[in-house]
């Protein structure tokens, strides 16, 4: 009891000292907006967080995102004389559970201003409401599910919450690009779709279905596998019964591998064309002999010439830096998006930060307004403009055919179709 009373006394004295110090500097009192503001003391760092899938089967996606975030923070340097601290990388586990518990960890720390993440749409659907309620801004580099932003026609998606932004494309573009390619370039009209129930995979197959039927094609089967399933003969038999010419399965490597390996053993699917999306255009799937000649849709990553305006780094330099720092090429396609997302957040923080005496104040609502107003920001991924539901991506989708098992970069350069949203 005694102790707590003395602590209170010290705290009160400290507060008084702060007020006197502030007045002594002649600064006016900072007025926080409705979401409150974060105060960063003189020798404190500005806190942002990385929330990506860094363990488990989808770590290939989250690890390059987190690496790119750290590179961007280093390249950007200080804001108003203060360092930016990313802290320990948090893990979204590529699941709703992981996203939720990581978001709870983040909101428990009132010093955090913004979050770069999540990697997976399923994790974002759980993390976004918590972070939004706490007044934070989050920018994802690789969430693509339409449900997280909007249908691009002015209706918010079911998982949209204020303060959510992304530099990744909205999968409505990817669905359209893939459908156009199949219908016009491959000249195929009967397609089977397989998703795994996740918002990313389900969102993409649905976008494909809508675009493809609009073009005049036919979706003969639209089915799903469950995560962890290894025996694909039943689902492939269900697919075979629809006699598709092409199977589009934009899922993740564990189940994707099983499908690619078992498809040739199912009667009626010997000659079917296989197509997948960015979730499978990853090293260990592209190593499979069965993935040869498959088509993959994904973000166009020809960023060599693009320069990020905040750090003056171009895509080619980024890849060189990445390789020298981490000893390998990025294992997934969203490194540029993660780098741009981070520099966007830091630029916006710098724009809204107000120095008041020794403290730096970052107003949470002002930060969101600043991010919403971003227009024509030059990033590695191209010119970035945010719409009112947080879609900031460059929306350029390309489709390549995997024709070189030994050199994935050469395969990824074998681009047959490019779509710009």
């Amino acid at each position, binding site marked *: 009891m005694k102790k707590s009373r003395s602590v209170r006394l010290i705290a009160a004295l400290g507060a008084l000292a702060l007020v006197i110090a502030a007045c002594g500097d002649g600064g006016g009192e900072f007025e926080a907006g409705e979401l409150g503001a974060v105060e960063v003391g003189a020798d404190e760092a500005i806190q942002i967080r990385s929330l990506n899938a860094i363990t488990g089967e989808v770590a290939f996606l989250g690890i390059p995102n987190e690496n790119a975030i750290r590179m961007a923070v280093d390249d950007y340097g200080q804001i108003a004389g203060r360092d930016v601290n990313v802290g320990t990388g948090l893990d979204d586990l590529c699941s709703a559970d992981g996203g939720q518990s990581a978001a709870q960890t983040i909101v428990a720390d009132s010093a955090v201003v913004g979050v770069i993440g999540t990697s997976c749409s399923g994790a974002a659907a759980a993390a976004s409401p918590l972070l939004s309620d706490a007044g934070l801004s989050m920018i994802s580099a690789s969430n693509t599910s339409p449900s997280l932003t909007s249908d691009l026609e002015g209706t918010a998606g079911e998982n949209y919450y204020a303060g959510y932004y992304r530099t990744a494309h909205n999968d409505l573009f990817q669905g359209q690009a893939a459908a156009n390619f199949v219908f016009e370039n491959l000249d195929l009209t009967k397609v089977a779709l397989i998703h795994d129930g996740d918002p990313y995979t389900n969102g993409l197959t649905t976008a494909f279905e809508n675009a493809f039927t609009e073009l005049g094609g036919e979706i003969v089967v639209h089915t*799903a596998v*469950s995560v962890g399933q290894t025996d694909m003969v039943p689902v492939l038999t*269900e697919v075979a*019964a629809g006699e598709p010419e092409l199977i589009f399965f934009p899922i993740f490597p564990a189940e994707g591998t099983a499908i690619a*390996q078992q498809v040739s053993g199912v009667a009626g699917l010997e000659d079917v064309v296989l197509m997948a999306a960015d979730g499978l255009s990853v090293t260990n799937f592209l190593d499979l002999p069965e993935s040869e000649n498959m088509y993959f849709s994904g973000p166009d990553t020809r960023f060599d010439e693009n320069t990020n305006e905040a750090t003056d780094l171009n895509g080619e330099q980024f890849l060189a830096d990445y390789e020298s720092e981490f000893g390998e090429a990025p294992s997934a396609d969203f490194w540029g998006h993660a780098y741009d997302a981070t520099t966007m957040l830091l630029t916006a923080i710098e724009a809204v930060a107000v120095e008041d005496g020794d403290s730096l104040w970052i107003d949470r609502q002002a930060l969101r307004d600043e991010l919403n107003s971003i227009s024509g920001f030059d990033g590695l991924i191209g010119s970035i403009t945010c719409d009112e539901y947080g879609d900031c991506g460059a929306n350029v989708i390309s489709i390549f055919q995997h024709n070189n098992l030994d050199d994935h970069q050469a395969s990824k350069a074998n681009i047959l179709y490019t779509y710009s949203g």
Partner: protein
Amino acid sequence: MTTTTSPSKTSRRFRFNWVDSFLWFIRVSALIAIVIGIVGSVQLFLEGEGPTAEQWRDLVISGLSTGFMYGLIALGYSMVYGVLGFINFAHGEVFMSGLMVSLIAATLMFENGFWDANPTLALLIVLSISMLVSTLVAVLAERIAYRPLRGAPRLIPLITSIGVSFFLQYAFAGIFGVATRSYPPAPGNLGNDVEFLGIAIEGTKLLVVGVALISMVGLWWFVAKTKTGRAMRAVAEDKEIAGLMGINVDRTIVTTFAVGGAMAGVAGLLWALLFRAVDFLTGFLPGIKAFTAAVLGGIGNLPGAMLGGVLLGLFENVGPLLVLNGLGIPAVSQLKDAVAFAALVLVLVFRPTGLLGERLGSEDRA
């Protein structure tokens, strides 16, 4: 005497009982749903919709081969239950460990060309490594985790086995990493179709069924005809009396675990041929399925475990398309696991002891 207190058989038979009538309601409606589903699928088939005859045949074959693999794993559950009366939940991981370690040998042989040059020898090498590792892991688990708990209430080794299961999963994740790895494709011309009894069957699936049958016969011979097998049956009957009769109970129990592990090792080879993909969680679902198969067939009964496995494989492969598709449910294949476990519930509703199981006395129940 009023009917409420009367124990007489006639009055009991006619008494209205909510639980019984509810169970009958479930039985009847399940049967009706299944019949409607099958009729619907047959109609679709006659209209030329849905899978073709060839595809149905392939589904049955793939269900059988998966089922035989489940059966082999189920034997391990059933044997341990028969002898010790507890469910060894780490058995799925015993299966995974052999599979994971023999992947190293398979990859090496594939890379230097031995895999395709000497298919038989290559598969025998994979088989022996897989059996050896699985046996070793099963025996070590018994020695380290279960033997100190001998005589403790049955719930305790059961919970311990869940701990062993997690330990093995994450030990393998630490050693081998978490990425999904893949066995090389079936060696030689094994992947091609083989003519068998007038129908073309994929070579690997035929091999899977053949290997499983041989192992099953071998196990039956071991349990029924050898001295050690007799000792196992004696220990299963009554540990104390068996000990008094001069049987080394500890050694017999170790043998039980070893044989169950070896069968899981064989199943590892079959998995490598059928599905190829492996990661540290690979053992979990087949383990649960094999446990389901063991219960389906009547736990503690070896032919029952095999029968349960085969039926479960068939149900989960054919069931979704045959029953659920006929009922007009969309995206049926993701309900494959649900069908497998629903099949278990249905069998238990009709036959609570499992297909070949016998009613256990209350003291024998786990």
